[in-house]
């Protein structure tokens, strides 16, 4: 028992002290957070104020553009909303950034106005010229002259405002109250409520989907990363020939389980630090972050994440360790590890559909297959809590598989560690398993 602790300690320290471990531990939550917030921030920072000249040949439209837009008020909505930020910017945001200036027409032709303002655009006196022709009501066409015309937010703001004005005018002509039409065409919003045993909470479905995928990607990445770390570690011991000293000092099972546990603990440390750091980040910026992240990251989800991380770790780490012990070169190891990655990709792809339809037969059966369940069962739990017996069954099957793998792994490890130079055949590996 003391010897297994020595192995765990050595493997754990070797990883945790590495610079790359420290960097990844700090950087990952920051990067992940960055991936969510930076595009939004960039959009806000990148959108500078614009001065647009309006040549209103039809009349009355300039006033409509400069009037305060009526937006649907959503009380209790935080200033920043993750899901919302991925949609196009709200009209009110755009409007606040544009200053319209009316062009005095003085009976000039449209072409003359364009010529004059082309110069002003080039000299950057103004950012653009909006030309509204007299027949805009029937042609539904305006022209916008600017050096930069890729600002969709501005374009769509102009288009939607003008459409509203035109439709209001048409309605007034037909003596229909615009308020009635506005009421008749108002959007229906779907508020999603997640029903759980502990109580129903309001949460957005988009948020759940994103978080589910997000945690699956983390689980997937971490499992592959640590699996390969074990494989390389075993291969290094074999290639540096230190394995003979190890085997002559301790039992092969102590060495094998110590290694897997030590590296597993390092992985768990990293995941725990990630959760902690993310939690700090989220709570630090909780004023600006949609509260649904917090409703998603319940302690329960956190617990399942840890359980399935541990199960998944052993299910994938042991095959990686076996590969490391059975092969002789990095190239051979790479071939085998690619096969393991493919195996892990299957639940990953099933997972995409499982988040949306977590209770199909495919999702149910696949999530009970031990090599898939660490990723798939966790996905289903995040999407909608499956019956407890299914979770228990998948955990039990995983444990059974781990027990079998551990037994097999220790045997192959014992012989493989001391076989140098020769590429083992499948028949030989089977013989190793029988070897006492």
């Amino acid at each position, binding site marked *: 028992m003391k*010897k297994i602790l020595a192995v765990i*300690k050595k493997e754990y*320290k070797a990883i945790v002290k590495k610079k790359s471990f420290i960097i990844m531990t700090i950087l990952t939550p920051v990067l992940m957070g960055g991936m969510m917030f930076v595009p939004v921030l960039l959009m806000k920072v990148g959108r500078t104020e614009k001065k647009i000249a309006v040549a209103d040949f039809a009349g009355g439209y300039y006033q409509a553009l400069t009037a305060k837009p009526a937006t649907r008020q959503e009380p209790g909505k935080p200033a920043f909303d993750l899901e919302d930020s991925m949609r196009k910017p709200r009209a009110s945001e755009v409007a606040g950034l544009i200053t319209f200036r009316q062009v005095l027409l003085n009976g000039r032709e449209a072409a003359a106005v364009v010529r004059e303002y082309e110069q002003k655009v080039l000299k950057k006196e103004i950012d653009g010229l909006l030309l509204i022709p007299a027949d805009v009501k029937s042609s539904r066409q305006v022209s916008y002259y600017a050096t930069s015309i890729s600002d969709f937010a501005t374009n769509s703001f102009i288009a939607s405002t003008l459409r509203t004005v035109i439709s209001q005018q048409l309605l007034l002509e037909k003596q229909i109250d615009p308020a009635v039409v506005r009421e008749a065409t108002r959007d229906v919003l779907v508020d999603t409520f997640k029903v759980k045993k502990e109580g129903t909470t309001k949460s957005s479905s988009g948020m759940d989907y994103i978080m589910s995928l997000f945690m699956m990607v983390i689980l997937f990445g971490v499992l592959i990363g640590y699996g390969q770390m074990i494989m390389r570690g075993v291969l290094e*011991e074999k290639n*540096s*020939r230190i394995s*003979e*000293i190890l085997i002559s000092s*301790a039992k092969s099972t102590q060495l094998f389980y110590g290694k897997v546990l030590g590296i597993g603990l390092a992985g768990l440390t990293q995941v725990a630090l990630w959760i902690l750091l993310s939690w700090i980040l989220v709570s630090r910026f909780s004023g600006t972050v949609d509260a649904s992240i917090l409703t998603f990251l319940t302690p329960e989800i956190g617990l399942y994440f840890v359980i399935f991380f541990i199960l998944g770790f052993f299910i994938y780490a042991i095959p990686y360790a076996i590969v490391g012990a059975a092969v002789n070169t990095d190239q051979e190891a790479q071939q085998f590890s690619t096969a393991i990655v493919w195996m892990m990709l299957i639940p990953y792809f099933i997972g995409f559909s499982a988040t949306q339809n977590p209770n199909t037969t495919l999702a149910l059966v696949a999530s009970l297959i031990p090599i898939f369940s660490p990723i798939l069962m966790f996905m289903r739990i995040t999407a909608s809590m499956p019956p407890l017996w299914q979770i228990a069954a998948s955990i039990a099957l995983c444990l059974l598989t781990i027990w079998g793998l551990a037994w097999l792994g220790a045997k192959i490890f014992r012989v493989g560690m001391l076989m140098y130079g020769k590429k083992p055949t499948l028949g030989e590996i089977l013989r190793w398993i029988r070897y*006492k």
Partner: protein
Amino acid sequence: MNEQALSLKDLVKDFDGKRAVDNISFTVRKGEILGLLGPNGAGKTTTIRMVMNIIAPDAGHIEILGKSFSEKVKDHIGYLPEERGLYRKLKVMDTLLFLGELKGMKPAAVKQRGRQLLKQFQLDGYEEKKVEELSKGMAQKLQFIATILHNPELLILDEPFSGLDPLNIELIKDIILTSKREGKTIIYSTHLMEYAEKTVDSLVMIDKGRKVLDGTLAEVKAEYGQKFVKIQYEGDARFVAGLPYVKSWRDSGREMEVELEDLAKREQLLRDLLEKVTVNGFQLSEPSLQNIFIRKVQEGEGA
């Protein structure tokens, strides 16, 4: 107390139908240095690996420190494998800590003895260096330190001198002799017989997987050593071959090596020589282990 540190009985190992170790038996007494001698590929490493329970013998029996091999016995053995290797990224002291703890030592004890040994091997100051930063010779010394770190009763060293410079060979020899004085048992293999000649108490010679000779150094030398005479001379000495008490004769023109039937005849030989040739030198000679080995192998092939 059992007097035997190690006993091998009828050990056999085949690799792919080829017999690597063929019925080898020998014993090692406690407190002695035993040399396992033989050319490359004789089966020395395979024998040692079976003793260390790294590979299983196909037949035969091994007793180590009075018992069959067990997990407990591992802590009392210091093993230096033929192929050296350490964790390249691990620091020197961390390497010793890990390997020492694997032998059941407490970290504090490892640190204390580790520092002392590093100093003895002129590696003090390298505690916090990574193994990959050490020179090859330094890494070899570190590996040797790791072997003796836990103060083992039995040292099993596979080719301990290979790859070392003369200074470090002397250092290792010193450590071996010191360990012997402390009552430890040391077994080492080498194909360099001149090194063995200076340190071993007993020896086992193996060739092509078979034991060709074993015994204490004194016994082996007594059996082969006392009947040889080396003579430097001038003149025609071919008549020596015909003398009745001469068993064998090897002439190199100005020096010859004569093997006598009986050592008592050496004075007779000197008298006979003085009659016919000028004798410049005459001395009893001990054949080197190298010569004994060659003779033994030739005898075996002749029989």
